[in-house]
């Protein structure tokens, strides 16, 4: 039994409620601590019990974070898991299943034999009860079994078991016994799964973190003092992480009664002079759009993270998509400046959360950051986040002034200095109505157009100050120039890594600031006769359309899909191989 390339894929599958995610995280983290590059991906339905849950672990040598369709090792905790994943198993792959509760169908056994897949029965339930544990602990037994299958040392896994099941010493001891039971059983059977993956010392000190957790850490580090949100997958984990850890730093975390409340509270908190933010998914964000417009009109900062999932309406709650770019760019009535950005991995999610907070305060206009389920809820390796990498820039804030100081005074860049209620400077009215420089309502024609121009002037200021898109690889001698955004970036990097080994040259541009969109860097990147391609996870090619609108450029090739699944590396490699022959 061995795998055929420089990736190894382990899939843990079972019914919802069988502890698949906990086991998956333990295994992923233990592999990381042993020095393996890993990526953890979850699939689960919008149910609490009864649905099918999967935790997929990619172990790899390349850059990026691959996600494969193929599986090398499948742990099947229930019968459905074998049938559902049979077709994914690679030649020489292996299925471990609970002999006590699962009897595979003969047709499946035959099919697997044809594909040279090994079916390995283990008495997971018996081993758990021999160790004194209950039925749920069979996933700990399975972890021990997989660990021995990979030929790894128990000392590297045991501490994680102890950290995870740390409620009582008894729980720890029981789980360790279960772990050893599984480990010894596989050892006695003499099973090994060989892989040619390298370990790397530097990986051991990296973080294993999801995009949502990264946003939450960014929020804490960058001084968010009030976080207000209403739960909605796939953004809820930001709320739950902050609810636990935010208050340790004095942060106030409010589970609001709806998204309208969350958004208006955030605007209120910024008006009072502190930093605030919220997060939701597309449907919740729809409810915030009137408040978005209020932020634009009153020039009060506002920051919201949108975790995308397939829509329209409730859509497919626990799956992924990039269908809300148009929404973020266009939402809200009236015309006002805004910034829309999209990180592609946790390190960026951390850093750009802090940057977004600076931008909304500097330009006093709303900032929206797009994540998706794939980035928000998958587990990535990342260099350790450092508070030292964060700077706080709150823009023009006055500390003194007199009666004549006007909150909405005109300025060259469109940004007026602000201050806060309670400051002994000068009263003002933050006004939802069109207003004068003091904030008083106006219906006078020239005042209306002057204020509109003042606010829209910020668009130019923003555009000339935003960083360029990121470029990976060398655009000069590339055979293909590829553009993408958001969470696609990591799997594409991994795919390009594989193709580079075959001598193929592909340059990749990641658009981070989607609005306002800087035309020049895109034009100069795509300039020339080289093939161009764009990859995005939606039905209507929203970024491609936007790029065409801003630059006039149309891509020669496009890859998209909208089935709720993120891109698999196999799909990307097939698409790219076709273009660079």
């Amino acid at each position, binding site marked *: 039994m061995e795998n055929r390339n420089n990736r190894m894929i382990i899939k843990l599958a079972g019914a919802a409620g069988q502890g698949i995610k906990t086991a998956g995280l333990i295994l992923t983290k233990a592999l990381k*601590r042993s020095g393996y590059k890993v990526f953890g991906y979850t699939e689960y339905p919008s149910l609490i019990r009864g649905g099918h849950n999967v935790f997929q672990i990619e172990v790899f040598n390349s850059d990026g974070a691959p996600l494969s369709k193929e599986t090398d090792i499948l742990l099947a905790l229930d019968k459905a898991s074998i049938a559902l994943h049979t077709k994914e198993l690679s030649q020489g792959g292996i299925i471990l299943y609970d002999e006590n509760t699962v009897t595979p169908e003969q047709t499946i056994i035959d099919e697997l034999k044809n594909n040279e897949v090994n079916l390995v029965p283990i008495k997971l339930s018996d081993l758990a009860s021999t160790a004194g544990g209950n039925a749920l602990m069979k996933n700990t037994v399975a972890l021990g079994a997989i660990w021995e299958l990979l030929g790894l040392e128990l000392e590297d896994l045991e501490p994680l078991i102890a950290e995870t099941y740390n409620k009582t010493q008894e729980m720890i001891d029981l789980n360790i016994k279960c772990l050893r039971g599984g480990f010894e059983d596989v050892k006695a059977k003499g099973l090994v799964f060989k892989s040619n993956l390298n370990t790397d010392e530097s990986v051991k000190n*990296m*973080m*294993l*973190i999801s995009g949502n*957790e990264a946003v939450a850490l960014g929020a*804490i*580090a*960058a*001084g968010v*003092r*009030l976080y207000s949100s209403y739960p909605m997958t796939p953004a809820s984990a930001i709320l739950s992480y902050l609810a636990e*850890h935010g*208050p*340790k*730093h*004095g942060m*106030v975390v*409010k589970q*609001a*009664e*709806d998204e*309208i*409340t*969350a*958004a*208006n*509270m*955030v*605007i*209120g*908190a*910024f*008006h*009072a*002079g*502190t*930093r*605030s933010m919220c997060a939701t998914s597309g449907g919740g964000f729809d409810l915030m759009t*009137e*408040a978005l417009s*209020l932020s634009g009109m009153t020039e009060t900062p506002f920051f919201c993270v949108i975790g995308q999932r397939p829509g329209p309406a409730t859509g497919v709650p626990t799956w992924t998509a990039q269908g809300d770019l148009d929404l973020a760019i266009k939402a809200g009535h009236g015309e006002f400046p805004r910034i829309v950005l999209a990180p592609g991995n946790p390190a960026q999610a951390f850093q750009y959360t802090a940057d977004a907070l600076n931008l909304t305060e500097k330009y006093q206009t709303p900032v929206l950051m797009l994540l998706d389920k794939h980035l928000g809820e998958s587990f990535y390796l990342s260099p*350790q986040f450092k*508070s030292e990498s964060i700077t*706080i820039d709150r823009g023009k804030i006055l500390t003194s002034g007199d009666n004549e100081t006007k909150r909405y005074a005109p300025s060259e860049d469109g940004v007026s200095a602000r201050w806060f*209620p*309670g*400051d002994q*400077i*000068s*009263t*003002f*009215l*933050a*006004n*939802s109505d069109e207003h004068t420089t*003091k*904030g*008083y*309502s106006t219906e006078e024609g020239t005042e209306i157009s002057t204020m509109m121009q003042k606010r829209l002037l910020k668009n130019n200021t923003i555009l000339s100050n935003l960083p360029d898109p990121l470029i990976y690889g060398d655009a000069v001698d590339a055979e293909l120039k590829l553009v993408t955004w958001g969470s696609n970036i990591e799997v594409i990097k991994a795919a390009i890594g594989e193709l580079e080994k075959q001598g193929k040259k592909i340059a990749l541009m990641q658009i981070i600031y989607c609005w306002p969109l800087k035309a020049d860097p895109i034009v100069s990147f795509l300039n020339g006769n080289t093939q161009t391609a764009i990859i995005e996870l939606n039905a209507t090619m929203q970024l491609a359309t936007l790029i065409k609108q801003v630059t006039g450029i149309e891509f020669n090739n496009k890859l998209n899909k909208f089935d709720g699944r993120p891109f698999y590396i196999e799909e990307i490699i097939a698409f790219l191989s076709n273009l660079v022959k």
Partner: protein
Amino acid sequence: MATLADFNSPLLPTWCPGCGNFAIWTCLKQALVEKGLSPMDVNLCFDIGCNGNGADKINAYAFKGLHGRTIPLASGISLGNHKLPVIGIGGDGGTFDEGMAHLIHAIRSNYKFLFILHNNCDFGLTTGQATPTTPQGQKMNSSPYGVVESRLNPGQLVLASGASFYARGFTGNIPQLKELIVKGLEHEGFAFLEVLQHCPTYNKFQDHLYLNSRVYDVKTDENHKNDRRYVYDLVDYSNEKIATGLLYQDPESTSYYSRLEKRKGMETTLKDEVKVYDIAEQVKEFI
């Protein structure tokens, strides 16, 4: 010390002659002066409506937000700086239509600010349509055959929701209304002050004479009880007399902010605390 004149805006009110908003406007300024607050010491939050048209007719820090969303806006401001006196102002339309959920949850949360309901029993600014507090059967703009829905009772709604402070004033009694605003500002939690507001233009069914002949101050009633259930019955529409004054106050009320475990003992406000925080402890858990 600030004076009434300090609160004057250069703009003059645009309300109809005889509108009750004049009285609330005056009482608000008087109460702020009495509390020793200057225009730069407070933040007022206005809704959209005739009430909100007062936003630039008073000189103070203020935010005129979205229709029906005054309460979450004011909540955010008062959490952002819990030392800042915050007053929310809204009409019966915005508060009980668009904003209903916010009201009930603000009562549950007990954020520390005063909310003044301008209850004129109609949509003023959009020209006299019915609101939830318009009597059933009343003919209104857009209800030419009479209001079909039953009439909502603000006092009973907030008391049943657990309000820690419920007072009712009347735009025909300025000294009392001023005193109720002062009391509301002093309350440790969400203070709900309902003002029975004249709207001579669109509310013909509950005019000054109607109200004046029915109101009394519970101060003058030695049998009045500071009891939620008692007041619930007292403010029932079936009662001929209309009780006003500080009708109910929970003496043990604690505000949302003061209930936050991890903020206990902290002297600063969220406004003072924007800086880089060290996340090293959190980062360790991901390694």
